């Protein structure tokens, strides 16, 4: 199937890739589990736990380490690693310095952007943009083509299951 995924299909793919990545990092769990169906609600709870872990590793002694890292690859794609939900304005500025028009916002617990605030933009064909999050934080691999002229990378996260990454027009 080569058609463009709609917003639900893209978001679901993103979530499920994260589930598969997490399983790949825990081979014993993956191979020893038998039977049972993980429901989407359990997926959301798992996501919440993963995000919480990412945040609870923030110990006083670790506060001197950067909350995020931004790196530009040879192809122009941009990698964002978020270890703590802090310094959103600086992360936004760092992305801007690389020519990526971005909005980064860390919301209160269990809050999420109101629907309709952004108009989702379609991904480029065979987009390389990937979004994962787990015990090692939040990671965004951004395909430059996905943030064209007049488009904005939106990173919105809160201490709950609600981590959203999208491009908007």
């Amino acid at each position, binding site marked *: 199937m080569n058609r463009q995924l709609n917003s639900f299909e893209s978001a679901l793919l993103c979530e499920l890739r994260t589930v598969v990545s997490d399983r790949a990092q825990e081979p014993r769990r*993956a191979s020893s589990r038998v039977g049972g169906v993980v429901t989407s609600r359990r997926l959301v709870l798992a996501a919440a736990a993963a995000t919480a872990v990412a945040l609870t590793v923030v110990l006083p002694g670790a506060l001197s380490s950067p909350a995020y890292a931004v790196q530009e690859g040879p192809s122009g794609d941009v990698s964002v690693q978020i270890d703590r939900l802090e310094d959103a304005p600086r992360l936004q500025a760092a992305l801007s310095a690389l020519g990526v028009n971005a909005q980064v916002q860390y919301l209160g617990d269990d809050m999420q952007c109101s629907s309709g605030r952004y108009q989702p933009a379609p991904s480029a064909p065979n987009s390389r943009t990937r979004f994962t999050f787990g015990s090692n934080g939040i990671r965004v691999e951004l395909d430059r083509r996905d943030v064209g002229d007049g488009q904005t990378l939106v990173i919105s996260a809160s201490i709950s299951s609600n981590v959203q990454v999208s491009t908007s027009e």
Partner: protein
Amino acid sequence: MSIVWDVGTDPDLFERFYREHLDEVQRFVARRVDDPHAAADLTADIFLAVIESAQRYDPTVGSQRAWLFGIARHVVHTEYRRRERHGRAVYRLGGHRVLEADALEQAVERLDAQAQARTLRDQIAVLAPRLRDVLELVAVDQLSVTDAATALGISPNAARVRLHRARRQLGDSTNVTTPVEVSP
């Protein structure tokens, strides 16, 4: 070598599987529910079950499609049983997935396109489950008898017998006119 074995642990292989089967899974769900948000939840559940079950896929037992339909059927029936136990009022306590306008529009179109299949499915609901399940997969989902047998975990011969009995019991009482492939 089938990619199914590794879709539960390799994100790229999973994405390939997802893109290859997404339309088919969504049509399967649309033949069974008429609510776009419930359909979205079930689609997510089916792919999660695929991830959980991938390492148990045995290509010698049946086709990938039959295996996938078997999982999809199990997920949907599990949801039905939950709804029967708890009632529709508490269905999916905590809320459905929120569909944005583009996804909602496509989901509604898909549901509309499968309305006839849902009617057909309702018509054969009078049958005993073991007969109904075979006829449903063959007449509603257009699986071959062999694939339907695989999806249900029964032999092709048993599936043929049940299919014959199902159609005989229905007689002229329904409009089950969908051509039925009878594989050797």
